């Protein structure tokens, strides 16, 4: 291989993130996380482990919570992607309201992922039990130990959503 040809192959993708189309040139195996952060310039989604162990990078792909750090961009094209920035533009999503009501964040670094997972849970299960919360949130690490408040906030969010739909 001549030295001027570098082995990262670039391809063009149209990514639908938060309702907006981003045209990016990227190595097909580049994880969606880095595309979102460094090519789309959306910094709310965080890097924590790079191996789908901590959940800090969670985004919605077609409404499902997915760790973006292990999803190659080639698999994300043509899907509907929502990041923390797309949840609401004014902190008015029920989960965000509940996160403030219960004062969940401490350092805040893992919270984008936690919030995205909680929002996805409540969408498919508006009234989760403790076991449902465990199952949906177990993939998410918080070193500050905000777990008791996350549990409370998910229940608060469920109430906020129930009130809004009445």
């Amino acid at each position, binding site marked *: 291989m001549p030295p001027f040809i570098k082995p990262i192959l670039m391809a063009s993708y149209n990514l639908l993130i938060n309702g907006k189309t981003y045209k990016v040139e990227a190595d097909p195996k*580049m994880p969606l996380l*880095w595309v979102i952060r460094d090519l789309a310039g959306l910094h709310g989604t965080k890097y*924590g482990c790079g191996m789908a162990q901590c959940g800090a990078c969670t985004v919605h792909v077609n409404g499902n919570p997915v760790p973006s750090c292990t999803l190659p961009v080639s698999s994300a094209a043509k899907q509907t992607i929502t990041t923390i920035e797309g949840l609401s533009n004014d902190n008015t999503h029920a989960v965000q309201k509940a996160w403030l009501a219960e004062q969940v964040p401490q*350092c*805040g670094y893992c919270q984008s992922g936690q919030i995205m997972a909680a929002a996805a849970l409540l969408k498919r299960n508006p009234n989760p039990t403790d076991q449902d919360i465990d199952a949906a949130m*177990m993939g998410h690490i918080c070193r500050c*130990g905000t777990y008791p408040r996350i549990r409370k906030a998910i229940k608060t969010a469920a109430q906020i959503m129930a009130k809004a739909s009445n």
Partner: protein
Amino acid sequence: MQTKDKNLSRRNFIRISGMTGAALTIGYAMPALANDAAEILTAQKASEQGIELTAWISIDKTGKVTILNHRSEMGQGSFQAVPQMVAEELEVSLDNVNIAFAPGSQTKYGSQLTGGSSTVRGAYTRLLRTGATAREMLIEAAAKKWNVNRSECYAENGFVIHKPSGKKLGYGELVEEASKLTPPKDVKLKRREEYKIVGKPLPRQDNPNKINGKAEFGLDVKIPGMLYAVIERSPRFKGKVKSFDDAAAMKVRGVKKVLKTTAPVFAVEREGVAVIADSLWAAVEGRKALKVEWDDSAFEHLSTEQLYTRMKEDLKKPGLSQRTGGNAEAVFQKTEKKVEAIYETPYEAHACMEPLTCTAHVQGDKVEVWGPIQAPDWIQQDISGRLKIKPENVTVNMTFLGGGFGRKAFMDYTYEPVLLSKEMNAPVQVVWTREDDMTQGPFRPGAVYECKGSIGGGRINSFQAKMAAQNMNWQWSPQPDKTAYNDSTTEGFCESYFETIPNYSFGDVPTESPVPVMWWRSVYSSTNGFAFESFIDELAVTAEKDPLQFRKQHLGERYRAVLEKIEELTNWKDKKKNDGWGVAITFCFNSVVGEAVKVSKNAGGKLKIDKVFAVMDCGWYVNPDIIRAQVEGSIVMAYGAAVSHEIHFQDGKAMETNFHQYKMPRINEIPDIEVHIMDNEEKPGGVGEPALPPFAPALCNAIFDLTGKRIRKLPFNISEV
């Protein structure tokens, strides 16, 4: 909904505060060290006298208040506690307050090291006084304007009000007048019962931006023209680069340069090879293609097993003595009722959710740094010292920290981008992968404790504790003074035991090891507390006493009050036979924390933690909700170190590389936690750390109560108890 930008840029702050007359800016003309008696000056006076003001508060013509937070925000809440104190005395609503991070400068802000749970307890009088001084100046300005007696005026919610007439003026309308006044020397601070903001569970000002992705962390820093670097560091401490082959790495599209680099790790240098690229992804891919050969001859290829064997051997040596009273060994020998135990605690990673990162731009003899930093003033000194440039030529810009726990007070990761930026003549961001972050340390040191104690007349008549562990202080010097004892061997121990135990001895045997070690949330208390409070329990059992009553028998009033609150919350006297209850109490960074844990076994015989009660006595406090959050978080972190994770070493390397091996606690494991805060007249104590040490001993004491099995080694497998 608050979505306004609370994090005013430093440049903007200086611009605003520099406009004399357009704002009332007051702060300190501070000597090199923080001093409560330091003089308060206005910006105008300071500029007349040619003094650069350390600005704490600025009020502009619209009445907007900006407060400079001199400490890091890593989740512990300084970003809320600092303005909450100032706003109280200033008589403004927190809604009208913007908060800016102070840049690193020890000459201006005193110690900025955010560690030792010291933000509130270290600066509260200074912060209250600054707020009160500005308030008094605004009142004086209004009285002058109205030509009335100042005693007829008072301040409330951003206004000065003339009581007899009901006239009022907003602070913004008074700043021009006030900025010309001389700050009064002695201002009266409010009494606690007058507080409207301090002591209230007000929502954190940083949280609205922590739920929508807007809060800026270290990895979010983007500087125009910035390059990214990842570094392949020696997997073994003190390892050197023998050679490297960058041919394949340089072929990766986007990779600009591969070069050998170095970073200070205490008194030694850690070598590595940096891959610098125009994107982080390219740098990471380039690193995968890099081949490095290491010279590990200077490093011992030791293992965890070897380390703990060494510590246990060390315990047989007489060691160094820190604090003694009476003659503990003689009394121990003579007394019949006695007990001895060995406790072991593991090495731990800090494992902040945000891996280490820092960005630097070196331009000639000026350096600008951006990052998640616990000690910005140290970074300024470190960089200026190493590059031999003036400290004022080093600007340290603070971002939010995605966790700190002691790790981000260290200066290795902050120097790496400085060297690379110099080399590349461009801003460089160094990013540590999770694997880099977890395997490189510094770690919390592992420790082994030997405890001996005896009971005479139903009370402790002797207590001895000897710790074998690395002395963290030794690392800073290539030739440390090896006759110096570890001055933290009593950390965590309740102070009043020293008054009631007639014979005691605390000391250490410093274990030699090349593993880099560093403060980890609550520092030595995090391991001492387990040994001391497990052993007090063993002594209570030896004395055939209820462990809580036994502690009360030996502790002073402040500690007894905490234990009595635990009795009340847990209904301690009516404990059921089949419940396992454990209690522990420690003193850490001037706060007393007592915790009680209830455990039981389910039908399948599996141990379950039913509930944790925590009673925090941190004296005078600012925000009870933040305190509760810190206590909850400390308990979760303590739980992880007690039952979930540990760093092992093999062949001189850390074995756990990521969260699949370093198992962090998950939401499903965390029991219900009930927190109570004591109200008393004590001075403020620490909040971020002191609730961590009592958890592990309280849990293990509860397990003993239920099963008769004494756990002396952490971490332990809770499902196998």
